[in-house]
């Protein structure tokens, strides 16, 4: 496998009217990797994905997808990309089989009938092939949409919040499938709001209000945040969150069950901040979670955007 990146974009920018929705985003994903794309609502994830698959023209920036120039080779790129939209994008008034058949025709797949049948078989939908896609439950819609996005065996798969509103069992299966596809060499860029899903990715990218704030493996992102954390155990530890969060040197404090999780940028200041409660609550050093990092990053970013106005 060549070691040229599957996706490589630099300085990608998109404006809607006066608002810069995606601001100089750099992103590199190597072949066969699963990259999680995270960020608060409205931070520009969907917009970035659309630019990568050629559905939006960037206002600035450049990049290559599978070595093809993003600005000149949009059509060639579309042939090799599978894109699963945030909103269910198949035809709800066509049956499951008819939807797959349509996709197969559009991509001019050979052995169309067999492929559709295989896909239905794999999905476990053979018996319901004639059911209208619009009548499927959320989880099944997601499965169908994924099947439609990978039927033409794309080299890159872009998934926009593929598991929103899907039950844990179905999510687990979904992710197993994505890992299986990646193992075959497919590159996956998947946006999500779930931390557990972020942890299933090889690497993550965090965008807030259009700005890419962190990239790398989970370890790298956590280390890069410079946060340290403490875990507090003791009577009513969980009730102290609001109070402790007001203290200087504390970025955030959150109850976890009966214990308390606090974190801040400076370990010494953090220790000092919890000192008043140290007599009854036992604080031990802990690993900051990905969630800590993201919330911390997001708060920083919100401040910036407010200042900017």
């Amino acid at each position, binding site marked *: 496998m060549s070691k040229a990146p599957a996706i490589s974009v630099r300085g990608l920018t998109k404006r*809607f009217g006066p608002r810069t929705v995606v601001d100089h985003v750099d992103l590199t994903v190597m072949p066969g990797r699963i990259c999680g794309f995270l960020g608060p609502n409205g931070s520009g994830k969907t917009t970035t994905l*659309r630019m990568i*698959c*050629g*559905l*939006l*023209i960037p206002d600035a920036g450049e990049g290559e997808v599978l070595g093809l120039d993003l600005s000149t080779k*949009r*059509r060639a790129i*579309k*042939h090799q*990309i599978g*894109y699963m*939209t945030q*909103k*269910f*994008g*198949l*035809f*709800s*008034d*066509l049956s499951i089989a*008819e939807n797959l058949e*349509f*996709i197969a*025709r*559009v*991509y*001019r797949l050979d052995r169309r009938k067999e492929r559709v049948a295989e896909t239905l078989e794999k999905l476990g939908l053979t018996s319901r092939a004639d059911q209208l896609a619009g009548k499927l439950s959320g989880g099944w819609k997601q499965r169908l949409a994924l099947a439609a996005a990978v039927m033409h065996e794309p080299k890159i798969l872009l998934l926009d919040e593929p598991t929103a509103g899907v039950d844990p069992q179905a999510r687990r299966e979904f992710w197993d499938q994505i890992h299986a596809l990646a193992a075959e060499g497919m590159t996956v860029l998947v946006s999500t709001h779930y931390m557990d899903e972020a942890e299933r990715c090889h690497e993550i990218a965090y965008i807030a209000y259009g700005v890419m704030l962190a990239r790398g493996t989970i370890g790298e992102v956590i280390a890069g945040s410079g946060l340290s954390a403490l875990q507090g155990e003791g009577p009513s530890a969980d009730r102290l969150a609001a109070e402790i969060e007001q203290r200087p040197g504390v970025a955030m404090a959150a109850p976890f069950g009966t214990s308390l999780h606090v974190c801040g940028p400076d370990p010494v200041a953090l220790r000092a901040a919890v000192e008043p409660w140290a007599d009854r609550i036992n604080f031990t050093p802990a690993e900051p979670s990905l969630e800590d990092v993201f919330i911390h990053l997001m708060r920083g970013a919100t401040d910036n955007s407010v200042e900017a106005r």
Partner: protein
Amino acid sequence: MWERIGAMIFKEVRQMARDPSTIAMMFFFPIIQLVIFGYAINNDPRHLPLVVEANDNSAFSRSIVSALRTTGYFDITEVAGSYGEADRLIAEGKAQFALTIPTDFARRLVRGERPQLLLTADATDPASTGPAVAAVNEAVAEALARDLIGPLAGRQQGPPPIDLVLHRSYNPEGITSHNTVPGLLAIILSMTMVALTSMSVTRETEQGTMENLLATPLRPVEVMVGKIVPYFLLGFVQVCVVLGFAIVVFEVPFVGSLGLLLAVTLLFTLVSLALGFTISTLVESQVQSMMASMLYLMPSILLSGFAFPYRGMPVWAQWLAELLPPTHYIRLVRGIMLKGWEWPLVLPESGKLVLMLLVLGTIAVRRYRDTVA
């Protein structure tokens, strides 16, 4: 390319077939329209308000009036002796017809001078004029047949003893019932082609399926053609339904060439489809595209010559009408169906439609993007 277009067509047809409202639109809409207007086409109205201005007060005029009464066609008002009264009633819409019997009617009839009877018709409702004239003629003939006896019996031979002059007010073109069919073709095609295509495109955007379509290798023009073809066929079915009904059920004359009619219909359909697509690139939702289509349909119905005669409209309205494709199409269909127009005659109006097609097609293709925003 062709396979992708094929995929689009296939999908569209399936969706159409699954959507009962499309089927309804395809068959019932033209039929319902035809039946509604067909009543106008074939109508045989009764109780038409007729004012009789009998200025001679002779036995002849009295018997003409009573014969008119017995036809059952008219509700008769008599205004004897006051000139201009009949015209005023027509102007006010209180009467639809006025029969004026001149002062010297009886005298001239007896002398065999073929006196005139003036029948004034409010032709804004042209459909009822024909039957009414026939009824008046019949009633007069009957009355006179009864009265011209004895020494006057000789008047019954030779040319009719009187001369019924028809004067149409307010509708110089004298549009007859048969003119409804060309207009109906234009309106039905406009409604389905413009409204349905623009809605079918915006529906994809609204439901989020457009994003999916555009993420595939489908080109915008392929999406367009894929959508146009099925609607085009739908339009063809509608034309056949309307023409079939018009000719078979309502016995509308068809003197021209069917091939030529289909050719200009094809042209008009394409113009309408291009317009529908252009609308879809300008609006954001199905509701908006419905509104935009209505905005186009209303003037099309009112100004194209379907509802009101073109020559009766003010100049500004005529200019506006010139800009509307149905105006030209209606002229073409009337020309071909009723007057038997041949090739050279259809060229000027067809040329205007071709021009519109080029302009709209260019706008649609240029505005239809392969991106989502």
